[in-house]
């Protein structure tokens, strides 16, 4: 154990005092707290999630190896109080937490209507549990969630602007409808085609005897920005769509970027309507090796 400290639970009722030695402390106000739960829910695809704390905020990564990586960014601004004190040489703090359990703890009071809940995350040091303290109308609850060390860090996706070959920013409704249509028939992969001429943006699936194509013109009112430097066609696994569906449902805008290696970055802008702050969830997907290989 890194250092000896008093029993955290016994300190609780007076107030959730941020202590100056903890690696990470993040305190959330009621409306941001609800939004954070919404975001956590949308990325709960796998059990374990890697939490990275930097000066700029909190980053949560869920990874399905070989397929996609989901990242949620909770920037520093949405926290009422934010403290990041990584041990000397490091610039970030990383730990792994079971997202299901964390979500269960956070949602303990949320369902009560008309009540406001505030929450605070505290991670004292390596090997310590993540302490989640909730307060609602003077009632305090503290949950300690066991953390794990990150042994194999999440893949650092190098998505460089200079490699970018196509980009589209559209309203999420439009993209959601498109993905719903693609999912109507079960199939393994889907194709994304971005062209300089019509149809501009095309999503396509082929299953047994049905071909589904969704086209979005660059002139559509749904499309905010369209850029195509090079005509691209890449195939991705359908699991990527399924993972993208949840954050997509709560998002306002979607950005689709593809680089020259075929790595697709879907970024969802999630607006908290109560205080007009925005957070982002990003999904990186790698293309299928050779879509037509089997044939």
């Amino acid at each position, binding site marked *: 154990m890194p250092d000896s400290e008093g029993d955290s639970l016994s300190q609780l009722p007076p107030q959730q005092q941020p202590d100056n030695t903890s690696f990470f402390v993040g305190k959330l106000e009621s409306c941001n707290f609800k939004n954070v739960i919404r975001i956590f829910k949308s990325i709960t695809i796998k059990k374990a999630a890697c939490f990275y704390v930097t000066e700029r905020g909190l980053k949560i990564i869920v990874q399905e190896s070989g397929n996609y990586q989901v990242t949620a960014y909770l920037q520093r601004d949405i926290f009422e109080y934010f403290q990041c004190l990584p041990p000397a040489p490091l610039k970030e703090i990383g730990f792994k937490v079971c997202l299901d359990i964390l979500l269960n703890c956070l949602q303990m009071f949320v369902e009560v209507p008309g009540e406001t809940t505030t929450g605070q995350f505290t991670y004292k040091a390596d090997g310590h549990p993540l302490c989640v303290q909730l307060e609602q109308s003077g009632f305090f609850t503290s949950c300690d969630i066991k953390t794990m060390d990150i042994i194999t860090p999440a893949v650092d996706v190098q998505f460089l602007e200079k490699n970018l070959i196509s980009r589209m920013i559209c309203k999420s409704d*439009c993209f959601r409808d498109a993905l719903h249509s693609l999912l109507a028939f079960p199939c393994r992969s889907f194709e994304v085609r971005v062209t300089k001429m019509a149809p501009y943006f095309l999503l396509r699936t082929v299953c047994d005897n049905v071909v589904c194509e969704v086209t979005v013109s660059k002139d559509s*009112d749904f499309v905010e920005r369209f850029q195509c430097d090079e005509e691209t066609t890449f195939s991705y696994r359908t699991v990527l769509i399924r993972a993208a569906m949840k954050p997509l449902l709560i998002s306002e805008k979607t950005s689709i970027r593809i680089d020259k290696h075929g790595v697709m970055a879907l970024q969802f802008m999630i607006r908290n309507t109560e205080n007009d702050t925005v957070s982002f969830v990003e999904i990186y997907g790698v293309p299928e090796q050779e879509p037509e290989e089997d044939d």
Partner: protein
Amino acid sequence: MNNHNPVMKCSIPAPHVKTLAKAINTLSKIGEELHVEFLGDELVLRAVSAQKSAFGCFKFQADFFIEFRNDYVTRSRQFAHKDAHNRFRFHMKSLLPIFKPYNAAESQLEACEIEVDSGECQMHFSFVKKCRVVHKYTVCVMETTLLQTAYTRKDTKSHVIAPARLLHDIVNHFQSKVPEITLHFQEKWFTASNYTADVPDFHQVSQMELTLDMEEFEAYEIDQPTALTCTIREIKGIVSFLTTFTFPSDVTGSTVGLPVHLYFTEPGVPLLLYIESPNQYEASFVIATVEAGPDAPHHPDYQQQGNATPRSAPIPLPSNGSKALSASSRGKCQRSENDLTSANGQPQQTDDGSDSGPSASASRRADVTTPASTSVTRKLIGYDSSSSLMTPRQTQQVAKEYLAADSDEEGDGDRDSDQEV
């Protein structure tokens, strides 16, 4: 080989797409495959059940579409009916997911275009949405032959018009697990009951009956009192098709209050249901009914038509009632209270008065009134499993004879009637 393949294309305005989606959904409850035909200036959808015990047909007419193009008509009208190139067959499971989102009103939709590429054996369904978004499905088609029934409305003797709401109430009165119902058309009243004669474990079965006065129907012309037993599934499908337009309290739909015409003659001969929305579409369904055996004990009222005495003679038992049946389970084919009277004071049900099986104590009565101020009687009574009526399998055989017959068709002019199997 021909660069100018004939084009069959139609465009459906957004408010009508829901109707088309519901029609396909209704037909999916009948058969596994959908048969589509571009016939003159009509789009015809048909389905037949696997056992050929039910057949459904929707005909969408010119006013239903924004645009309708059928090159087969302009080229050779006289051969249009003979040619198989305007007929296609699909698996329901490849069409249902396409139309599923449009079963409910879809605000973004502008139109649905259906186009056939006869050269490539593909049919394209394009859903054109607002703001230049298109969802397009390409489905491979299979060839098919003409599918039609040999039984038409002209062949029937009785005609009843039921408001959609009434049919909805009747059908939904029965539990979802009830497979078949019997419709008793009496001279003055109508009774619907679940058909329990084939149920193996009769201890767990309750019989329900719903009695309505003939005034509830818009028209009630019956040749002779008839008891028709048919599967409820198809009727439910038709009712759900109608009710989506009628009930959700919107008065905008053109099909509000669309009545259902029922045509029939006698047990064993198909029941025809017919709906028409003028100039837009018409739907007809042919449903097989169980053939009444010579000793069918089925319903006392049917046996004693016009009998005004509350107590009547015992119901004749099936002639084969002696086969390995205990005395307690035998002879309680229909048991009920004799004090049940309908609105017009006539008896609804008679007591067989025979030996007292255990079911007598189980008999009870609950009067339920539907929103349509209908007098409804629900009973729990025992029954005899030794009835000699047909099993559903037999029903299907009877139906097969009607559906597979190669005779004149359903009022579509001079068409060949090759039946596809």
